[in-house]
């Protein structure tokens, strides 16, 4: 069965054929991109539905012996990102159909390069290929941030590029040091060889991995590129960045920490405690900074930083319940934030600006989109019948179960903080000057079906997950087995 490698190859061949097709006729671009993302989504859903019989699954490129070959691996922990990919790839392509008007071929080329990188990063089982796919993801991200060709997007792209390149240097340094210490880059062979090293060496390695990947998932002192980058980019990139890219980077960091170093080492050396405190700090800082923003996209960017804080807290608890809760929030936040960005993009069509004071009274012009938007914001806060409540409840439960009372309190405090700034957006949209329709900037616009569909579909998913969270927990409940137990992961390749 060659399905996992196809998940990397399909977008890769789309990239090459896009160049060819665009050379002959522009009208083949959209069908080609659509077909390839449909095929990728189908493969992902094949793994999701056949998880009991097919997983864990390892694919051996070139049929070398397992310790020498390039291994590609799909296990139950991978399904966390697969669940987000299955929804987001297709919906973001659907939304981008009308959003992207110039240089379509280039945009979809970059988008597919991004999909190659994400799929590769999630599935690869050695650090060499991880580094390659990491850089593929990063470079396409830099280019996509600069894509709109406005002053702010170029400036943000330069900033992101500086931080990203320096962080990539640290990541490469960590990978080289791992190789010097263990003599292999295969993630299956590293754990036992790393276990014999001095504690200080391993701590330095963890610090380098944390800095290298921390910039990418915007942990607080290293987050500065994210709000800037979010202002001037297409909504499609906003959605993909929030829902997939930063989640993938965090996903891989957790795999590196828990599989290579092991849960016991992390807990004995306070690494999990440091991460936990860092996560709380990240969350509170994100919420506090979101208060001061007057641009909707910047605000949502800071909110993403804060929500990543919840995920960091949940994962650093180190208990199976914590991993499940964190994974749930990773997918769920992707769904919610993706829908919020889609809806915000629709609102922008009427307001003509992302400045909050120019969005006053929008509910009169776009009642349905505003209603969806409000529902989603309430879900982000964690109001009961919606899915945000389910994920925060799971995290809170896991934190209390593991004996962390203060983090539990901080989670509730953070939710109240977020209620503050989301309420101010809601009040802004529903009240304010009613003469907006007279202004020249605001106009009633007919939304096309491909703009309504992604936001509506994700809102439906959000409500369904809020009522039946078991749909998603049933998908990821075996993830801790392959994250906390090094042997399970190693056996997939060596023993299987």
């Amino acid at each position, binding site marked *: 069965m060659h399905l996992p490698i196809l998940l990397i190859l399909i977008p890769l061949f789309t990239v090459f054929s896009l160049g060819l097709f665009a050379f002959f006729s522009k009208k083949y671009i959209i069908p080609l991109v659509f077909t390839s993302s449909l095929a990728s989504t189908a493969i992902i859903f094949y793994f999701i539905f056949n998880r009991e019989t097919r997983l864990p699954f390892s694919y051996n490129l070139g049929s070398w012996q397992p310790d020498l070959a390039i291994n590609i691996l799909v296990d139950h922990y991978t399904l966390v990102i697969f669940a987000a990919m299955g929804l987001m790839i297709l919906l973001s392509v659907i939304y981008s159909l009308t959003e992207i008007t110039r240089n379509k071929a280039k945009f979809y080329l970059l988008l597919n390069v991004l999909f190659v990188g994400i799929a590769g990063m999630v599935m690869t089982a050695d650090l*060499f290929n991880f*580094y*390659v796919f990491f*850089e593929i993801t990063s*470079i396409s991200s*830099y*280019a996509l941030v*600069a894509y709109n*060709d406005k*002053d*702010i997007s*170029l*400036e*943000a*792209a*330069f*900033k992101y*590029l*500086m931080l990203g*390149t*320096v962080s*990539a*240097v640290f990541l*490469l*340094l960590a*990978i*080289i040091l791992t*190789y*010097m210490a263990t003599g292999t*880059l295969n993630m299956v062979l590293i754990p036992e060889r790393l276990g014999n090293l001095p504690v200080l060496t391993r701590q330095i390695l963890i610090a380098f991995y944390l800095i290298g990947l921390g910039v990418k998932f915007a942990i607080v002192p290293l987050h*500065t590129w994210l*709000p*800037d980058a979010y*202002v001037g980019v297409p909504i499609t990139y906003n959605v993909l960045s929030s829902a997939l890219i930063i989640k993938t980077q965090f996903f891989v960091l957790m795999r590196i920490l828990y599989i290579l170093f092991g849960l016991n080492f992390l807990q004995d050396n306070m690494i999990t405690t440091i991460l936990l405190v860092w996560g709380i700090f990240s969350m509170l800082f994100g919420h506090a*900074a979101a208060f001061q923003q007057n641009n909707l996209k*910047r605000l949502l960017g800071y909110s993403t930083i804060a929500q990543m804080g919840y995920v960091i807290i949940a994962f650093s608890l180190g208990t199976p319940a914590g991993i499940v809760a964190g994974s749930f929030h990773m997918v769920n936040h992707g769904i919610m934030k993706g829908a919020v960005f889609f809806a915000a993009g629709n609102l922008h069509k009427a307001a003509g600006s992302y400045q909050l004071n120019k969005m006053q009274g929008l509910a009169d012009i776009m009642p349905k989109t505003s209603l969806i938007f409000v529902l989603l914001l309430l879900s982000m806060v964690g109001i009961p019948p919606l899915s945000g409540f389910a994920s925060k409840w799971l995290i809170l439960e896991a934190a209390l179960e593991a004996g962390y009372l203060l983090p539990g309190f901080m989670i509730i405090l953070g939710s109240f903080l977020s209620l503050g700034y989301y309420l101010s957006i809601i009040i802004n949209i529903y009240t304010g000057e009613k003469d907006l329709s007279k202004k020249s900037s605001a106009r009633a616009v007919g939304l096309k079906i491909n703009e309504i569909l992604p936001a509506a579909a994700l809102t439906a998913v959000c409500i369904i997950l809020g009522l039946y969270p078991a749909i998603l927990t049933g998908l990821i409940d075996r993830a801790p087995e392959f994250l906390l137990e090094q042997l399970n992961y190693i056996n997939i390749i060596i023993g299987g």
Partner: protein
Amino acid sequence: MILVFPAIAILISMGIYAVLTQKNMIRIIIGISIVESAIILLLGAISYIPDGVAPILDQPYDTVVDPLPQALGLTAVVINASTTAIMLALVIKLYNRYQTLDIHEIRKLRG
């Protein structure tokens, strides 16, 4: 050979110092390039074996160098070239907009 590792450390520090202190965008890019080159030097240094030959095993050799860091080094060279290309492209675009290379004058974003 002993001197290679301190040299790499000095190069990395120099590069990061340049990134942190310089205002000119071209100089920042040069700083990043120095750091990246230092990393590639490190990759070369850790695979070095005295009298080692390239690991093309068409005939028996006694000592071959480790090919994996060299392969990683080649990959890193390609990646560095592409990031530098994107950086320079952005600098050209920014220079056309603002008519300056000073990073502090290009400041529409705050925070």
